[in-house]
């Protein structure tokens, strides 16, 4: 198998682990997919295209991701919900030294109590991935969501 294809499979695996952590209530595993000084940002498409710096969720370290998880577990008040990440079109864009630039499309379905399942968000992931102890991890993930309007609350990371 070509090296490129293997790398693509590894990226798929990283995304599958990412989706499982968020969808299967294994939130504590979510930060583990990032390196310690990773950045994670969720940005509406309009602002991304304009180059504005604000993010709806803005984490500058794995510790900030862990704080997000702690807040979800202990602090925030929200209705219970089920989320389902559908990640497709995972592709490697280029390799820049130790950094793999990758991208993917996503859709997140949300199911609230007594409600039908709806498309909560759709957009793309823009990633920088590095190898740490032989395993791929996110150095940066920027989530650019298409509808600039969030339906209700964005409780969980996208």
């Amino acid at each position: 198998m070509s090296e490129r294809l293997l790398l693509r499979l590894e990226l798929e695996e990283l995304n599958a682990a990412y989706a499982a952590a968020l969808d299967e209530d294994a939130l504590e595993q979510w930060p583990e997919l990032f390196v310690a000084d990773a950045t994670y940002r969720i940005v509406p498409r309009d602002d991304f295209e304009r180059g504005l710096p604000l993010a709806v969720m803005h984490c500058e370290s794995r510790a900030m991701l862990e704080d997000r998880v702690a807040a979800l577990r202990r602090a925030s008040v929200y209705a219970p919900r089920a989320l389902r990440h559908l990640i497709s079109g995972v592709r490697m864009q280029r390799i820049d030294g130790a950094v793999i630039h990758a991208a993917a499309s996503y859709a997140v379905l949300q199911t609230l109590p007594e409600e039908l399942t709806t498309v909560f968000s759709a957009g793309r992931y823009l990633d920088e991935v590095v190898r740490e102890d032989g395993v791929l991890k996110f150095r940066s993930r920027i989530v650019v969501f298409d509808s600039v309007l969030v339906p209700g609350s964005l409780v969980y990371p996208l």
Partner: protein
Amino acid sequence: MSDRAWPPGELTRVPFWLYTDAEVYAREQQRIFGGPSWCYVGLAAEVPGPGDFLRSHVGDYPVVLVRDESGALNVVANRCAHRGVQFCQRPYGTARELMCPYHQWTYDLRGKLRAVPLRKGLRGQGGMPADFRLEDHALERLGVAERHGVVFASRAAAPPSLEDYLGPAMLALFDRVFDGRALRVLGHMRQRIRGNWKLMFENIKDPYHASLLHVFLVTFGLFRADQPSEVVMDTTGRHAALVSRRGEQKASAATAEMKSFKADFRLRDARLLDPVREFPGEATVVMQTIWPNLIVQQQSNTLATRQLVTRGPDAFDLIWTFFGYADDDAAMTARRLRQANLMGPAGLVSVDDSEMMEFSHAGLSPAPDAAAVLELGGRDVADTPHMITETAIRGFYRHYREVMEL
């Protein structure tokens, strides 16, 4: 609506039909958003140059904020004078003129009609009648007021001056954040809340919940009942501000009554809450509600306008525009971006609110004849040197009843 009861002068009970009734909503659009009020439409920094435009709303009424060649700000209805087409579909941009794509009626940046294709007909056939005058068909222009980079619009024929409308107490707090320095827009957050728009105003006029619901505010002392605080209103009660001072993460007699105080909750990355003092005076948080569609947020170093766009009685959009000052250094900008994590649809504080407004609407909708109880801090409307009160919500409804004649 007409057969429903709300005893005259009653401010401690707010009937739930007020939040769901279509006739009430229609009257609100007419009398409140379409009446002699100033509605926030955007920041001047979002349209910095000639031709820059921004789609916005006054209530649910679509408008366009556009800067003309002279540098003046104009607000026009987003509705072609010909057949009513919503001509501006891009959320923002730059244009030399405003053209409706349907029949290419073309307006200047002040909304004056400049060109109508085939006006004279072709080969002597068709065209507009001889007495058709371009000047009779301008875009609807709204009144515009700008203060220190914040732009308001009014559909009233003769609105009061913005300064008189705000009154001295609110103007002083407004000028505290908008002090004349150039603003820098950092970005936007937008969410659609399945609840009536008044729930949002009540939320920011309600310091009671802030000390109880929000673990982040309470635990980290960002806003808590046992800290020096005050509730300030204008003379009508329509505008208000909750003013408070940051405290410590320490237990007190008050925190014993707050289930959301968590003495052992620690941030792994403390940069999230690393505020620096930047405004004169002791207050570290001022949350101001400006009737009928604006919230000005200053919580530590996170600054934002929150615009309400009504979407029928059962939903509204909340549009957050985060900003700093043009002279902010990189460290301050980084701080503002981090602290923005507290706010917005994913806010460590604000998620609680957007969820609670939806829970409120879900709870009250099936019971139009039941009513909310607003007795905390007494039954009157008056400024208070503390935040154990619902007085600002009562003030809001006192003015609401006058304007709505309800």
